[in-house]
């Protein structure tokens, strides 16, 4: 069964297994090249009963496991209305993600999840949504974007501000037309344009500074490197959007994903349980402390 659309309640993994370490075999159904070094993997859980029970909310992540290699926490990037097919968009940067990059369609991969607090789409219904994504950060928002597109009438103005270093670093470019078709504004900017680039040049915060804002309830949902998100929060504040209107998805070292291994701690929080999506007012002070 699918979770109710725009849920703020999060589906948990315990409906799948009592053992937090137990994985489920998945099969790679499709692989797509996205930006340089980044691929998307569509996975289907092999066990039909587990596949049918599996549900997630946008912003949650799975632990992907390759035997003998290890596990990595990866956001779920596909439409929550069709959880039978789970997309993970991954940059090959480490042990596990490099090994993932060597897999082909039909290969087996193990997963457990979903974990973490989702984007609070249900709470934000009725207002404006501003997605702000730096590079691969858009991967943690794609599920939310697809969910919002499906329930577009529940929101007022919806905007995606997406920035990348270069034009080839913009994620999911082939989908922007469909998102615009659904009534979502998509604005992109790059730091280092090439000769073909005719769009904005600069940081996503520049787009935010220029964005026309209606005086209605708003949610800024951002994902990217920590300094970029801090910059977005600062920029939002300048536009009158306080820390309680800004949500960000943090990344930390994760191993167990159930608040028992301690590796992802951030101040008093377990990023796996209390996040990865945090409202900015809960973490503002902590983000300003070096090496926390």
């Amino acid at each position, binding site marked *: 069964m699918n979770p109710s659309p725009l849920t703020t309640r999060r589906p948990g993994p315990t409906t799948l297994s009592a053992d937090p*370490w137990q994985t489920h*075999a998945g099969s790679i159904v499709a692989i797509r090249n996205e930006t340089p070094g980044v691929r998307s993997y569509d996975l289907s859980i092999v066990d039909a009963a587990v596949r049918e029970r599996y549900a997630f909310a946008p912003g949650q992540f799975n632990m992907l496991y390759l*035997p003998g290699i290890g596990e990595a926490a990866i956001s779920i990037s596909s439409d929550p209305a069709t959880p039978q097919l789970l997309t993970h968009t991954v940059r090959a940067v480490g042990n596990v993600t490099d090994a993932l990059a060597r897999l082909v369609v039909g290969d087996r991969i193990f997963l457990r999840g979903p974990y*973490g607090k989702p984007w609070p789409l249900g709470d934000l219904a009725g207002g404006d949504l501003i997605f702000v994504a730096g590079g691969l950060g858009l991967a943690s928002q794609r599920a939310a974007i697809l969910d919002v597109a499906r329930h577009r009438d529940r929101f007022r103005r919806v905007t995606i501000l997406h920035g990348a270093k270069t034009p080839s670093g913009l994620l999911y470019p082939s989908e922007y037309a469909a998102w615009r078709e659904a009534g979502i504004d998509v604005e992109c900017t790059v730091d280092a344009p090439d000769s073909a680039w005719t769009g904005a040049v600069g940081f996503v915060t520049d787009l935010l500074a220029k964005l026309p804002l209606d005086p209605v309830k708003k949610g800024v949902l951002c994902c990217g490197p920590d300094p970029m998100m801090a910059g977005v929060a600062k920029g939002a504040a300048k536009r009158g959007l306080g820390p309680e209107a800004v949500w960000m998805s943090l990344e930390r*070292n994760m191993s167990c*994903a159930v608040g*028992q291994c301690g590796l992802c701690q951030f101040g*008093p929080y377990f990023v796996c349980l209390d996040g990865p999506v945090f409202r900015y007012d809960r973490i503002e002070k902590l983000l300003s402390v070096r090496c926390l």
Partner: protein
Amino acid sequence: MPTPVRQIGDRVILAPEALQRLIEVLALEYRVIGPTVADGAVVLRDLASADDLPTGWIDEQEGGHYRLHRDESAGPFDHVVGPHSLKNFLFPPREPIARFERVAGVWEECAPAAPERPLAVIGMRGCDLAALAIQDRVFLRGDSGEGEAIDPAYQRRRNGLFLVAVDCRRAAATCFCHSTGSGPAACSASAGRQADLALVDLGPGPTDRVAPGGGPRRYECRIGSARGAAVIDAIAADLPLWPSPPEDVAAAERVPVDLERAMWAREGSGGGPGRSLDMENIRDLLYSNLEHPRWLEVADRCLSCTNCTLVCPTCFCASVTEVADLSGDAVTRERHWASCFSLDHARMHGTSVRHTTASRYRQWLTHKLGGWIDQFGTSGCTGCGRCITWCPVGIDLTAEVAAIRETPAPSTGGVP
């Protein structure tokens, strides 16, 4: 099964030879663990007989200092806690959490390994039982809808665990359980510290013991569970046992009371003969002092060696290693203790979030005494003093907290 003769709450006197019978009776059903002398310290290991107990040894502990001395008047439980704790057995340093096999080119997850023999642990103190209650909160949280989990291996060992508690008659200079509410009384109904059997040694003891022992060695034993009653019944089949006389009950109950009073009385300020930790508002104190200069100062002494986290009876951080056999077709996922003092702990994208010793010590102390309260509704410190004793440079968390308390940063509203 015969009808139990004794009931929960009954109290009996055990003669010294009953300890041997206790180990034998427990060994029928359990793997029996208890204190013994090895490598110059009292550690927890498998006990074959009561002769393995550290009778005649007492310890001397200070910051960065641990020595055992012979003392012929010392009973088997007159030592204070050594480097090991229940954590070593319920949450072992290494354990497999999953196994995978590749058959005909296809990986499959294997069924979990068969459960081990249940554990009986003898000689646990107030701080040990307090640590157990804290680890229970970490590993047995269940799912409240917020994504927490139960660790199945911990739960299995915990459910099977048979505990024999013993009250301390002396405290090491590093002990401060009286100030953290975790001792010295081993059992405390109000604090939720329970044991199947709770012993108090009423015999003679070393000269620095607080509670006087009189007459021949004997143990006043309180039965705390039906399993405990069955074990006492089994001992009584071979040895004469008699109900505790009122004067022995009174003497037994005085032991932790007298020790606690003595611990409060001996207290010096930071590094004196006794230590204490002022727990008042400690979470907010630490979180509003994340940029305190003391973190840099302690980092000049701290070796980032991880000893404090390994001997801590509540530290629970762990990471997982893939262990493959030579064929590469069988993989065991092995969980092992991790430490926030290692660079790997907060590793992300090939670098560490906490790349300075100051940031790692701050992580440990603010988590232990602050973040833990947010996460589990309790501080992570039991006042056992192990982190002080086993720190190679003698860093004392009670002194570090006192230093911050003395010169707190002007409030920046930095409390998350």
